[in-house]
């Protein structure tokens, strides 16, 4: 089947989802009121609360939620075939992410623009705030671990991409100086930065950077050496002022995202590539099956709990009219689904013949360990359709992923530092509070230890447990979504509306998450993977806790409804 048909089918389904299902949500579930005074008007201050045109706000919301994660999950999940992957992206986006992102904006807007952490404490129970903090701790640990491995895998497989990926740092620092110190405009410098970055790609091809010598010297594998170097970089980067590196990097990332999406879709259309992956890949008994693993492998791109943090943290404070939440929340989710579609296209139509695909996806270990490599090669193929050398195209894709992953780690380590400080304060370890160096070191060492857990299907059996880590990340992300959907469900019930639209994805996610966690526990126990076992057990406890909190809150709300005490938020 031509890959273009998949674009038409997916975007067509997204259109129908927006046209009909989001209207149902707006009118029947969330009961949007165009006359409701939104927080942006009630607390209008021009700073946090600003009534904002819906097209502008969609731009802010989408660039805040779009990133590298919707690429990695689908690139692994096509292991079970393109059909389950695209079906979950379509259904998850329309019936999960759309409900979740849209609902998080509305619920927050109806509660004075409070964020989902505060709301969970208010709507579910006071304990839920602690639960939220712990889920975020696990989530950030896993984010940092998986992105560290992602970058190491790509640098090892594509040493030609190291120079352009490193060049981003001085370019971003120059832009930072120009924008924040010299107060210059950013359009031309960021375009020049992007051109310099792309100009560095052929230079990187000419001078590939290998760390084999260093690895040999310290007695580690190349990949382990890269992981350690990347985390060392992150330690320093997260200590720098944000204006110097982190913020200006985002000016480049935003433009890269648009360029990457444009070239992928243009490459598919121009090349008229066929999908060579099987619709359903029947994997061997006793190995990871798509039920339930598909639903935690693709989190971002189908439904991501992280979106509720953006939706309730900032977007809800800026919606002009409550009815705008439909366009912004639902279309933001569809945009993220489109990124997942691009990743699926690259990994099912960009890898060559069916035999090539079967080799690339011969096992779950090969699929997960090689996922980013498959995506990168697929994008290289699409760029070749546009007349650009495939190797250069692959390097371009590596640079896109690495710049996103690097910025994510920089932010993730910073956030983890704050959370560790918060947890230390809650736990009474006052000695840690304010100790930035110790907290940063802990924020680096915890995910580093996790990133170096052996397993998977690497060369000589020395790969990392990347696939397992990724699914644990997906599980935690779905838990965050579960927490947000619980808040949304209770709020919808409190308005005497039918909450099924939120309860169905909530139940589905918690069921799949619990199932996968139990399977993982058994598997880690058999393998003796103690670190993964502890992590999995910790997440399982949080899941059980969340289920108890959600059921209790929903029952309490149902009791209030029966007692006929309707309350308008």
């Amino acid at each position, binding site marked *: 089947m031509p890959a273009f048909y998949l674009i038409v089918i997916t975007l067509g389904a997204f259109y129908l989802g927006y046209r009909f299902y989001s209207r149902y949500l707006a009118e029947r579930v969330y009961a949007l009121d165009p006359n409701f005074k939104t927080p942006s008007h009630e607390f*209008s201050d*021009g*700073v946090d609360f*600003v009534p*904002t045109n819906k097209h*502008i706000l969609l*731009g*802010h919301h989408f*660039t*805040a*939620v*779009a*990133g*590298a*994660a919707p690429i990695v999950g689908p690139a692994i999940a096509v292991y079970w075939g393109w059909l389950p992957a695209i079906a979950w992206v379509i259904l998850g986006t329309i019936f999960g992410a759309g409900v979740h992102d849209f609902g998080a904006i509305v619920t927050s807007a109806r509660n004075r623009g409070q*964020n989902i*952490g505060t709301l969970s404490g208010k709507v579910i129970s006071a304990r839920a705030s602690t639960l939220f903090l712990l889920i*975020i701790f696990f989530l950030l640990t896993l984010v940092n671990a998986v*992105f560290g491995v992602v970058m190491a895998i790509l640098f090892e497989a594509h040493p030609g991409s190291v120079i352009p990926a490193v060049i981003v740092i001085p370019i971003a620092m120059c832009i930072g100086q120009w*924008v924040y110190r*010299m*107060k*210059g*405009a*950013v*359009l*031309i410098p*960021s375009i020049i930065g992007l051109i310099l970055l792309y100009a560095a790609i052929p230079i990187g091809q000419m001078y590939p950077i290998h760390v084999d010598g260093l690895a040999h010297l310290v007695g580690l594998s190349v990949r382990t050496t890269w992981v350690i170097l990347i985390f060392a970089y992150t330690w320093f980067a997260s200590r720098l*002022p*944000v*204006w110097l590196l*982190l*913020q200006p*990097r*985002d*000016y480049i*990332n*935003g*433009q890269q995202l*648009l360029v990457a999406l444009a070239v992928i879709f243009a490459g598919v259309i121009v090349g008229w590539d066929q999908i060579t992956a099987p619709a359903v890949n029947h994997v061997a008994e006793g190995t990871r099956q798509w039920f339930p693993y598909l639903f935690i492998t693709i989190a*971002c791109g189908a439904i*991501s709990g*992280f979106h509720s*943090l*953006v*939706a*309730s*943290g*900032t*977007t809800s404070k800026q919606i002009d009219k409550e009815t705008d939440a439909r366009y912004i929340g639902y279309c933001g989710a569809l945009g993220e689904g489109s990124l997942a579609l691009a990743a699926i296209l690259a990994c099912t139509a960009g890898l060559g013949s069916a035999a090539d695909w079967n080799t690339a996806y011969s096992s779950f270990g090969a699929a997960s360990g090689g996922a980013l490599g498959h995506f990168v090669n697929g994008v290289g193929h699409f760029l070749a359709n546009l007349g650009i050398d495939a190797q250069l195209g692959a390097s371009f894709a590596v640079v896109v992923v690495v710049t*996103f*992953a690097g*910025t*994510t780690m*920089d*932010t993730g380590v910073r*956030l983890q530092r*704050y959370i560790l*400080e*918060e947890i230390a304060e809650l736990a009474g370890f006052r000695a840690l509070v304010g100790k930035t160096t110790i907290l940063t070191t802990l924020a680096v060492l915890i995910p580093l230890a996790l990133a170096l857990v052996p397993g998977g299907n690497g060369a000589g059996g020395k790969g990392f447990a990347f696939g397992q880590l990724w699914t644990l990340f997906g599980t935690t992300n779905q838990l965050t979504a579960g927490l947000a959907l619980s808040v949304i469900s209770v709020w919808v019930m409190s308005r005497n509306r039918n909450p099924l639209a939120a309860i169905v994805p909530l139940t589905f996610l918690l069921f799949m998450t619990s199932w996968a966690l139990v399977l993982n526990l058994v598997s880690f126990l058999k393998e003796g993977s103690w670190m993964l076992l502890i992590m999995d057990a910790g997440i399982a406890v949080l899941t059980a806790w969340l289920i108890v909190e959600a059921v209790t809150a929903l029952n309490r709300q149902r009791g209030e409804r029966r007692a006929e005490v309707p309350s308008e938020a």
Partner: protein
Amino acid sequence: MSIGTGHRLILVREQDAQHSGSGCCGRLGEAHTDLGGAADYAHSRAVMESVGMVYRRLRDAAPGLVIDVVDPRNTIWLYPAVWRASRRAGRGVGASLKSLSRAGAAAAIVLDGEVLYSGALPAPETIVAAVMAQLHDSRAA
């Protein structure tokens, strides 16, 4: 007709949602600053608050004026909007291109496609006075 009717002001400044870059996996929204990240972004916050003062004063002084607050990273909306407004106001291609090049700064004030300030902003009252003067001039014309 109230002052500012038919005119559009774009206040360009960074937003909390865009601060930490890299997509949703590195963002905690408002929870981020609750947890202690506020100091990291104090420089951006200072600009946000300064532009916020301009916003509030102009909203009161020119009720007919359409005011949009936009992050400079929102390229898909910002640059076409500045270009359209500049051309609609009758400026030539060269002047409109110049507006484009100056509009995307960490802070900028753009009235009807013309960039009044870019980068280092003066005191809010100076900006308000400049915008009001422009609006009165165009009314008189």
